[in-house]
């Protein structure tokens, strides 16, 4: 691989991925990415995701979520897909994490908020029906809690 030499100095100076959103040393995400949590277990989905991935894959996953917070839909159409057969208009966040094709089902809510609901490793049969059902159930629970707050 290449070391950043004089030819690439512009890349260091001007291309910090989160530069636009750092004000007084505090990062202000342009988009909110919220992971589903059960009452009393706020990290439920993130624990599930960590259980599906190796530590290195999970570290890369965290980085991609930071990109999503900074760039939102500008990230590229290739990272997103619509979930066919979902009554609640779910989307799919599509990632390649080393040798794993990883997908997270989400809903884009008002106030620029991605609510992440369920995750799975992609296999040949497409999106597992159980993942869609889980995601829809969680979205309804999230909305009920969110609107009650």
């Amino acid at each position, binding site marked *: 691989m290449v070391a950043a030499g004089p030819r690439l100095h512009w890349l260091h100076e001007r291309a910090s991925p989160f530069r636009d959103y750092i004000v007084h040393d505090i990062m202000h995400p342009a988009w909110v990415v919220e992971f589903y949590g059960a009452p009393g277990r706020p990290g439920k989905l993130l624990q599930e995701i960590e259980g599906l991935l*190796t530590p290195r894959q999970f570290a890369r996953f965290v980085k991609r979520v930071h990109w999503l917070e900074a760039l939102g839909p500008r990230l590229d159409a290739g990272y997103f897909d619509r979930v066919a057969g979902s009554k609640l208009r779910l989307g799919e966040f599509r990632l390649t994490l080393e040798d794993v094709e990883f997908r997270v089902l989400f809903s884009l809510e008002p106030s620029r908020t991605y609510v992440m609901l369920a995750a799975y490793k992609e296999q040949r049969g497409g999106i597992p029906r159980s993942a869609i059902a889980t995601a829809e159930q969680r979205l309804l629970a999230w909305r009920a809690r969110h609107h009650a707050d």
Partner: protein
Amino acid sequence: MRIDAYHANRMRRAAAYRDAVADVESDPREFFAARIASLRARAGLSQADLASLARTTQAVVSRLESAVGDPKLGTIQRVLDALRGHQPRPRHRARRGARASRRLARQAP
């Protein structure tokens, strides 16, 4: 739950995760992946647009952004050159440039 809170907690408690984060942070492919994705998105380009500017395929750009495989130096250079051509010029430089142009115009016979 937000990812930063979870990440901070795992960094405190899981040595394997700390090592993995250090590994990923030091991976040059990850460095280029983050910068290419960020510059491309801010220039308003899709992966396919960038691929056509860099005379490569969308799959190659996607692999660069996913930090997978072993990309060729020439490919990285073409992609970065294409991105460099699409970055907006900083404002102060543009103003300085405009002032210099006006001065030259005044000096011209």
